[in-house]
């Protein structure tokens, strides 16, 4: 009985694993194969081994394209992502800290406003007017602030749920020890939020890095290109260069992949007490 049970279980496991592999691995293999082909072969969209393995040549061509624009794009994306994520984490932690602990009328007002932020789509042109008014239009800093304001609600939501799992006794002990509000926040609470913060870092980094609409509007100009926009220009300009297009996909996917591998273990830990509460 148990043996048969175990057998069917193993069988189900194996079948699921095969399905998961096909569904999730094959598209990536396809990207990889297409990026390794010649222009003519890539345009046939076949799932086959390339006759000549041209991956490195294609990657190199994409990197060199228009005076190494790719390098500039990756650098811009790096600054944008790191700057935004840093701000999001610090600002959201501050808000979550006070909202969850005070739980008063002001706190519920703030929560409602944040919720609207999660739901309302951003208004592009009015935002450009505001950015111009304060002289931040077409600057990386301006785009960072816009990304922060859009990602903030999600971060506050998760951090606030996580705050609830930090016992008040910890605060009280710190207060009795004579902590100032800032010391309590930065030295006691902030480190305890670490797992949830890592989740936010990963999720918002991926979202911001992958965003293409906002940089298109708030950071126009060829010197301001970001990683996703390189893809955009490949689509319109070389609609027949699928080899290069997929090579570009590979290049711009590497940074988030590295980050994910780096943080993988801790993401689950962060969600365990964070997002599950909602």
């Amino acid at each position, binding site marked *: 009985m148990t043996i048969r049970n175990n057998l069917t279980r193993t069988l189900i496991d194996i079948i699921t694993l095969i399905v998961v592999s096909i569904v999730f691995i094959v*598209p990536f293999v*396809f990207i990889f194969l297409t990026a390794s082909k010649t222009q003519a072969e890539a345009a046939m969209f076949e799932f086959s081994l390339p006759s000549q393995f041209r991956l490195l040549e294609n990657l190199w061509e994409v990197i060199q394209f228009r005076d190494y624009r790719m390098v500039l794009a990756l650098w811009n994306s790096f600054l944008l992502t790191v700057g935004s994520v840093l701000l999001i984490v610090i600002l959201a932690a501050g808000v979550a800290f006070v909202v969850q602990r005070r739980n008063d009328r002001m706190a519920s007002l703030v929560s409602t406003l944040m919720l609207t932020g999660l739901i309302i789509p951003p*208004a592009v042109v009015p*935002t450009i*007017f505001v950015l111009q008014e304060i002289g931040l239009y077409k600057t990386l800093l301006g785009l960072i602030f816009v990304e922060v*304001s859009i990602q903030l609600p999600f971060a506050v939501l998760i951090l606030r749920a996580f705050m609830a799992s930090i016992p*008040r006794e910890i605060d009280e002990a710190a207060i009795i020890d004579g902590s100032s509000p800032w010391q309590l926040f930065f030295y006691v609470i902030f480190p305890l939020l670490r797992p949830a913060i890592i989740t936010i870092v990963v999720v918002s980094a991926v979202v911001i890095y992958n965003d*293409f609409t906002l940089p298109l509007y708030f950071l126009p100009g060829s010197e301001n290109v970001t990683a996703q926009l390189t893809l955009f220009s490949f*689509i319109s300009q070389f609609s027949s260069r699928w080899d290069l297009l997929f090579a570009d996909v590979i290049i711009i996917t590497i940074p988030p992949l590295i980050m994910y591998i780096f943080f993988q273990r801790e993401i*689950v830990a962060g969600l365990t007490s964070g997002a599950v509460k909602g």
Partner: protein
Amino acid sequence: MTNKNTLPTSRKKKTQPATISRMYSYWFYLPAAIVFGVFFLIPTGLAFYFSLTRWTLFDATFIGLENYEYFFRDPQLLTALRNTFIYAILTSGSKVIISLPLALLLTSGLRLQSFFRSVIFFPVLISAVAVGITFSSLMQPSDGLINLALESIGLPQPDWLGDPDLALYSVIMIDIWKGIGIATLIFIAGITSIPTEYFDAASLEGGAWVKFRHVILPLSRNATFTVILLSFIGGLRTFEIVWTTTRGGPGFASDVLTSVIYKQYQAGFYGLSVAGNVVLFILIMSLVYPLMRFFNRMELEL
């Protein structure tokens, strides 16, 4: 789950009000309030005003509710509304149905567990543009990989993105593919946070089904709500996947509200498109708010 256990004790207000207002100072709000206010609330407020104007970017003429009237008179609006609902319901439903068993499998101690966890999370990491490009070529009607595979096992080969009756569902499948990683992760987190005592008790009583029916299902209810809520909002607001695969087409067959609004924006009907945004916002609010209330009540019953 752990929250639930600690909440009742921590809710007791032992701390003095004076200490509260001193320790949890409003100053912590200030930086976030400035950024959120200046870069989100002010533009949004302006947008509400502009939705009542005929706006050319150069000047705005007040025309009252005319934009709203036009928005609702749009012959394609009904298709888009219907598609938006189908999209949101199917994506959020499928994500629960697929990712809960997947999460169970990936917490059952498989040898390649962490490898597979990474693999299903990969699609989350790629940009919507890249996903759009990849699937557009995989779904090519006569030489795309999917149809070649179907051909080899003798199944019919539909035109996934070009058939007006099918395009929306193909896009939905791509969305599920891209989003399943997050949903599974949330379930994995929910399952791993169930205290082992519950499993021990359950395994005394019976096999895997008992464990699933009486422990995992009820105790991962919060995770389920989170997945449904996040993907339902995400589904109602979906844009990037639709835009990078079909642009709402062929014709208007896979248009959703956001793509209609975006096209109005592209066409230069700025007032009209802001009015569309306001309508979308009200629609999401009126659907999501009751859903949240309902879920919150269910959680208390636990």
